[in-house]
């Protein structure tokens, strides 16, 4: 039997029972739509997260206190509640002398109440240097960032985030020049940051308060070490080379002779992007695999309905065999019908998935105002088409074989 003829027969059967065919394929539609949505949303989420990391700055290298354990990455010391004091000013000075490093930005952080008049807000404050602003892509929309001189002179100046400015001062008061209290210490507002949104660590960057690192260390935290150091690599140097230079400098400073004894961790932006990318990819695939369980359920439903169809069309099978259909022709016919149902179901599922993905993108980007990219991965579409056709083959073969094995004489007598 020609492919075109079995397609024609399958189409006629499909059209004859449109409602039944649609209900039969519903499991496939839902399964494919779910997989498409999860893969698309997962891709968009990955883009968002990676975009957040890339938005921190370019050519960035993160130096975190606390080492990895024989190459296995450990979560930062602070998140485990452990205070590691290995990164100090001497390290910053040594790294600043490296030609392969454009800028070195130390960072300390803490939490405090920010107070102006009757208004207050608990915020995360960060003590850093003047290089923080260009290295970390923080733009001061009003006023100016504090300077290297402010840091050297321990000046009590602060640059605040846009949400913090709005909370403390409201829309009508210009914060520039005003004094606020941070952890009972008075600071003069010199700048207000442009909107930044949520950072990679989940911190609302519009609620930040940035002060000179010397003031933060000496007068607010009483520490001499840093919580983190950013290094901006010189673009003229390979990032891997810069990373290894940082490790060498710090190992020399800390008297460390073997790398697995490092009391610090150096990660490039690419390392972090790679880890985050792997994590989000695995999560996406995991969720898609869960969603594809519904495809198995849908396939069982199709097998069930095809078996019913074989019984209903017993006389037709007997007729076809009597006029010359072989077992192979009968298998081809019923398999084609099964694949048609799942294939059409797959196409509808892709369309339904596209609608949901578009709606999600609109809601997230326009209503929730989150920088969400619209992703519709073509790999998911091709996968969906292949899987839906494959489901039809796998779950259609048994009913097709049952049809083919029917005795034509008994089939012709069937009532």
């Amino acid at each position, binding site marked *: 039997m*020609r492919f075109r*003829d079995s397609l024609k027969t399958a189409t*006629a059967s499909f059209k004859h029972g449109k409602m039944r065919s649609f209900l039969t394929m519903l499991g496939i539609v839902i399964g494919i739509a779910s997989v498409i949505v999860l893969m698309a949303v997962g891709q968009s989420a990955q883009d968002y997260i990676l975009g957040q990391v890339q938005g921190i700055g370019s050519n960035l290298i993160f130096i975190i206190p606390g080492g990895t354990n024989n190459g296995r990455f450990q979560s930062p010391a602070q998140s485990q509640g452990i205070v590691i004091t290995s990164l100090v000013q001497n390290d910053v000075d040594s790294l600043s002398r490296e030609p392969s490093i454009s800028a070195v930005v130390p960072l300390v952080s803490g939490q405090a109440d920010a107070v102006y008049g009757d208004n207050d807000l608990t915020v995360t404050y960060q003590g850093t240097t003047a290089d923080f602003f260009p290295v970390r892509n923080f733009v001061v929309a009003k006023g100016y960032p504090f300077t290297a001189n402010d840091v050297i002179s321990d000046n009590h100046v602060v640059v605040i985030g846009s949400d913090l400015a709005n909370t403390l001062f409201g829309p009508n008061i210009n914060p520039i020049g005003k004094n606020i209290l941070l952890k009972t210490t008075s600071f003069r507002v010199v700048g207000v940051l442009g909107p930044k949104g949520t950072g990679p660590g989940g911190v609302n960057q519009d609620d930040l308060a940035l002060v000179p690192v010397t003031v933060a260390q000496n007068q607010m935290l009483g520490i001499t070490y840093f919580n983190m150091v950013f290094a901006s690599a010189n673009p003229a140097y390979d990032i891997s080379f810069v990373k290894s230079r940082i490790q060498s400098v710090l190992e020399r400073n800390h008297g460390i002779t073997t790398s697995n004894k490092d009391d610090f961790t150096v990660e490039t932006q690419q390392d972090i992007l790679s880890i985050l990318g792997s994590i989000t990819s695995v999560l996406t695939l995991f969720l898609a695999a869960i969603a594809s369980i519904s495809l198995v359920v849908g396939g069982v439903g199709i097998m069930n309905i095809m078996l019913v169809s074989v019984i209903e069309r017993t006389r037709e099978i*007997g007729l076809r065999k009597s006029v010359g*259909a072989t077992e192979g022709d009968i298998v081809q016919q019923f398999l084609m019908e099964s694949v048609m149902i799942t294939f059409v179901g797959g196409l509808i599922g892709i369309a339904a998935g596209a609608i949901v993905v578009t709606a999600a993108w609109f809601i997230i980007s326009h209503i929730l105002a989150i920088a969400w990219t619209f992703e519709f991965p073509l790999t998911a579409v091709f996968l969906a088409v292949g899987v839906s056709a494959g489901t039809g083959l796998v779950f259609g073969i048994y009913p097709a074989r049952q049809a083919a094995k029917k005795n*034509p004489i008994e089939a012709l007598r069937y009532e």
Partner: protein
Amino acid sequence: MIEVKNLEKTYDDDGTATVALQGVSFSIDKGEFVSIVGPSGSGKSTLLHILSFLDRPTGGRYAFFDKSIDELTDKQLAVIRNKQMGFVFQAFNLLSRLTVYENVEIPLFYANIAPSQRAKHIEHAVASVGLAEKLYVEAGKLSGGQKQRVAIARALVMSPDIIFADEPTGNLDSQSGAQVMGILDDLNKNGHTIILVTHETYTAEFADRIIRIKDGRVESDEKVHKPRRTAKEFFK
């Protein structure tokens, strides 16, 4: 054309052997119109199924155009059924949701005839049974007589050597039955070999020759000496 020698068919039903045919022998030449007559349970349907390659005997020999059924595979039997045999059933066995054209087209699927070549075969077959104007009507909307004529057209579309008709007038009124028998008569006059299976002696006498089957054996095999019945006589 057909050579049957000591044909046997025994069914094994859970250890119990049922003999449906035993010692059946006859031959049929090209162009004959033969009736196989017998009461219910006589074995005539079993014989028809074997002659039409829908079943295999358990003993004896059956050769169709000198090809023994024992030497042919199931696939080869299917090819012969498709290209050299036509079937007309008592219950018509049309697909009611398909049109007349699509019903008659079915044997052409399995003959691997290109779609562009099919129309002329179908139109000729349907015209020969007088239903040209019904070509694109759904089979389910036809009368009983028209359905049986479509079934005959389907049987003819491959220009078969032989047509098997199993109680073709069993579900029809007299007028429709007359039309159907008239068509079979014309087909025979045009050279088609017809084997008609019936339990009615009256209908059997439309043929040139009657083979009577009883209890699985050939009781008699006689030519019809008087002028064979015509379609007009079906009204009686």
